[in-house]
């Protein structure tokens, strides 16, 4: 039997075992086989995803696989598995019983991959990226890439990324506290999930398109890479963000709702960074998120209805107009600009994808 055929057989087995479980008609051996099959299916994903930026510290790939799978097999008092049965409910299983095996395989891989990202996220406080190793990898990649030059300045390693037009435009020197700009570019261009060589090849292409050469320290590039991967991981985690208010997303289409949910996760991350730098107070973070939520709702309902200050003031009444102008406006405007760019790119992507099909 070929490898692909045996893999499909494995997934067929998973489907049948799931059917037994949702019918509450399983034996202990069914459960054991299901768990083993799922762990076997997820192990290659662990190896692949952990290579992104995480070196697994004290965890073996199989620990991560078992941890991920064990969350699906938490029972309630009735002996049922609420998480598993939510992901693979009767409706879903029924659909896949008559669909092609490859379709179920795709769905299963998608679910397992998402659950795996969640595990990485929950362990993010414990698993640290191996900075020295990633740094070496970046340096090696940059040295090989055309349009990239490495300089040593006062003991610091600087990378000059000047594609195509050497000497024409003086590169902008990016200071370390400006790395946010690079992270934003990387996220907006979908560079999350890429391994080091592909990531920097794509980044150079993007900077080349923008005709914006930069000179940046290797440390900043390292942080940019790690931050992008973390943000990407976080945006991929979970089925949606926390519901911030009862207003929800109204009558938005599922695609728009998904995008808005993704956006909320991104904005939460950006605000967390402002929070760690003491640029906003803890209670203000929620106010910003709620204000943005209202604004996005208004965008769907026809457009912005009031001044940005009024959106924010609704949830942070203590902010005076003067304080808003001095300290808050820049943050809110940046969040809105970044959200608008993100939505624009993603909607264009969706549009072109639907045009192709």
């Amino acid at each position, binding site marked *: 039997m070929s490898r692909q055929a045996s893999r499909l057989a494995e997934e067929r087995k998973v489907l049948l075992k799931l059917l037994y479980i949702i019918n509450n008609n399983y034996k*202990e051996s069914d*459960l*054991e086989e299901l*768990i*083993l099959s799922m*762990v076997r299916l997820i192990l290659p994903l662990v190896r692949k995803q952990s290579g992104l930026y995480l070196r697994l510290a004290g*965890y073996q790939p*199989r*620990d991560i696989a*078992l*941890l991920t*799978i*064990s*969350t699906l*097999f*938490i*029972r*309630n*008092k009735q*002996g049922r598995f*609420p*998480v598993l049965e939510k992901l693979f409910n009767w409706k879903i299983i029924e659909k896949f019983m008559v669909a092609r095996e490859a379709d179920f395989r795709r769905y299963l891989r998608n679910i397992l991959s998402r659950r795996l990202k*969640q*595990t990485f*996220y*929950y362990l993010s*406080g414990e698993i640290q990226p191996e900075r020295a190793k990633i740094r070496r990898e970046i340096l090696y990649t940059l040295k090989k890439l055309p349009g990239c030059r490495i300089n040593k300045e006062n003991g610091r390693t600087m990378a000059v990324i000047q594609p195509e037009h050497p000497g024409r435009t003086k590169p902008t020197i990016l200071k370390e506290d400006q790395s946010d700009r690079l992270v934003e570019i990387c996220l907006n261009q979908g560079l999350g999930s890429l391994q080091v060589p592909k990531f920097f090849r794509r980044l150079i292409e993007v900077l080349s398109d923008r005709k914006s050469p930069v000179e940046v320290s290797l440390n900043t590039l390292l942080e940019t890479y790690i931050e992008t991967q973390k943000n990407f991981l*976080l945006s991929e*985690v*979970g*089925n*949606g*963000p*926390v*519901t911030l208010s009862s207003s929800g997303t109204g009558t938005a289409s599922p695609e728009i709702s998904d995008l808005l949910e993704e956006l909320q*996760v991104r904005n939460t991350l950006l605000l967390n960074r402002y929070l760690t730098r003491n640029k906003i107070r803890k209670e203000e973070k929620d106010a910003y998120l709620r204000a943005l939520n209202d604004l996005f709702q208004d965008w769907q309902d026809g457009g912005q209805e009031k001044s940005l200050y009024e959106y924010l003031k609704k949830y942070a009444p203590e902010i005076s107009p003067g304080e808003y102008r001095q300290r808050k406006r820049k943050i809110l405007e940046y969040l809105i600009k970044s959200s608008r760019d993100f939505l624009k790119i993603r909607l264009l992507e969706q549009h072109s994808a639907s045009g192709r099909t």
Partner: protein
Amino acid sequence: MTDRNFKKKTDTEFVNLCSELARPANFRRRVKLFHHLSQVSPFPHLVGFSGLPSYEIYAERRSLVSSDHSFLLRILHDQLSGRLEAHLLHPSEHRYRYTFIVLESLKHEFLTDFRGWAFLSQIEEDRALAAVSVSPPAAVFELKPDDEPVLIFAEEELKECRLKTEFFSVGPQPTLKVRLVNLPEDSEIKRVVLVIDDQETLIAVPQKDLTFYELPESFRTLRIYLYE
């Protein structure tokens, strides 16, 4: 050890680890129960008040006791619903609340609720009740939102055990991460049970002393029970 033997050993370990998620726990801390020959209940009122005299609702099938007579397990037939119930009694609430009743011949375990009750599924009584043991929690923690877990009960060996908890709220439902710390070297926690507002019960098999629970959107108090 040759490479092939090493691989075989690793594969077996791996299969065993997966099986632990499916199999009933082999609790270290468990108390065997024995059949109590007297069928007359000394505490008829303890079956609970339901508007009808207890003898009309329940028919007592069997009762089992521990060797020191501290545990009393009554197997009752609910005449109204037609199902079998297990009512566990002990002078200490930490011994009958959220305690596993293990039907060893069936390899099946049931968890009691805060009253010490468990609903048994359709079981073949004679075979199922041939060998019964109970496994009470070895430690109990209480956790309130925005607070640290507080130890409210522990067996002597687990007095120093602590929990590190973390909430994540990226998905629609918050997730609770529970890490067991400071466990004695010879201790192995087989089950970690999360009780949400005395309503919902989630039973997890920890991996690497870790468990993750998906919680409802709102809750007041969480209790975490550890079983050895």
